[in-house]
């Protein structure tokens, strides 16, 4: 309870709330699109770099198991999501696959927010976690998009979507940053560290202000998507999160690391996945998948999910 309240008083979460409020009162506040893109490039590169530097200090055998677990979860979670949507939610195949692709991938901002939250709690999640983000980003999308491909019902171009997701800017920046950080190592990283490390939390505040405004617009679509998807967008993350904590702890992650893994796995992508889905499954409704991942799961995770995963990780791993 205490850790939940503390989450609500963090500048990052408060900025998200401010963004929502700004839209609700119809303020003309607007973060210019290019500023938003600039910050997002900065954030992705920064977590890549930091992750790469940390990875260069991590023994391979410490990293091996968590990486495998993450890959496994990346394949499993979209299948779970798909099954729930199609067979419990009675959604059609295309839309089920489209939404599942989002939940198979990862929201980088949710990841960042979870690390910030845990550090504010005095915890210290493993430094190689950004590598796991990179591992988690792609497979889930591919798995989900393969379903209509196999059922011969896609209508779009699977190959183009594959190229889009693999060469998408978020993967290039994240992976590129990881490799640069790995090669450069801690000493050479020092000169760029004030820019990429000290400024990070502050840049995140502005980023979440914008995300709050975007989410607010999504919230208006809530009534269009129906109760089932709202429930799905809250319960599936919790389920995936608990799964991630359990497997993460088994793979040797710390409590903090398991909580961060839970945030990652439970989150729905809203950058890589939408672009790929739009290409591969043009008939799927953006209102459904964007509202689910950005309008429901993202704010849930930011506000409640992350502290919850931490509590569960403490409980399971304590």
């Amino acid at each position, binding site marked *: 309870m205490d850790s939940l309240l503390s989450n609500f008083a963090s500048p990052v979460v408060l900025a998200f709330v401010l963004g929502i409020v700004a839209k609700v009162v119809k303020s003309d506040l607007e973060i210019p*699109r290019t500023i938003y893109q600039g910050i997002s490039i900065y954030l992705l590169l920064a977590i890549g770099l930091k992750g790469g530097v940390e990875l260069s200090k991590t023994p391979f055998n410490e990293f091996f198991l968590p990486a495998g677990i993450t890959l496994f979860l990346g394949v499993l979670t979209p299948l779970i999501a798909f099954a729930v949507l199609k067979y419990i939610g009675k959604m059609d195949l295309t839309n089920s696959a489209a939404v599942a692709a989002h939940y198979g991938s990862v929201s980088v901002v949710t990841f960042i927010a979870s690390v910030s939250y845990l550090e504010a709690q005095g915890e210290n999640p493993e430094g190689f976690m950004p590598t796991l983000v990179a591992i988690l980003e792609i497979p889930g999308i591919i798995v989900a998009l393969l379903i209509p491909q196999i059922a011969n019902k896609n*209508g*779009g171009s699977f190959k183009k979507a594959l190229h889009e997701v693999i060469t998408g800017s978020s993967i290039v920046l994240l992976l590129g940053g990881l490799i640069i950080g790995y090669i450069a190592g801690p000493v050479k990283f020092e000169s760029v560290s004030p820019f990429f490390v000290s400024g990070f939390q502050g840049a995140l505040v502005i980023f979440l202000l914008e995300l709050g405004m*975007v989410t607010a*617009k999504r919230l208006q*679509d809530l009534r*269009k998507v129906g109760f089932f998807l709202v429930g799905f967008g809250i319960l599936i993350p919790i389920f995936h999160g608990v799964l991630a904590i359990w497997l993460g702890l088994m793979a040797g992650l710390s409590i903090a690391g398991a909580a961060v893994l839970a945030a990652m796995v439970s989150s729905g992508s*809203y950058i890589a996945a*939408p*672009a790929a889905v*739009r*290409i591969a499954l*043009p*008939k799927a*409704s*953006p*209102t459904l998948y*964007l509202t689910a991942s*950005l309008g429901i799961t993202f704010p849930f995770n930011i506000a409640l999910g992350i502290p919850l995963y931490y509590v569960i990780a403490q409980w399971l791993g304590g």
Partner: protein
Amino acid sequence: MALVELYLVTIITERLLRDEILEKMTELGAKGFTLTEATGEGSRGIRASDWEGKNVKIETVVSEEVGNSIIDFIAESYFENYAVITYSHPVNVVRGDKYI
């Protein structure tokens, strides 16, 4: 100055389709194009500028024939599933023979 009557074809659509359309347009005979960033609202539920990035406005000066084949291509390939509007009108072009 000799003016030639040609057609200005305008396509406003999701940014995602940009490269595909430009490639195809060149294939169909367009000699050049101009791109502008735009936002907009139409029959689809989601404003194009909301999340997936801005719309793009593609303008190309072409002969009537090339223009028609571009219009046909757009209509067949994208009208059903993507946000797109396409229209054309005649313009008087300086040194128009360059664009045929």
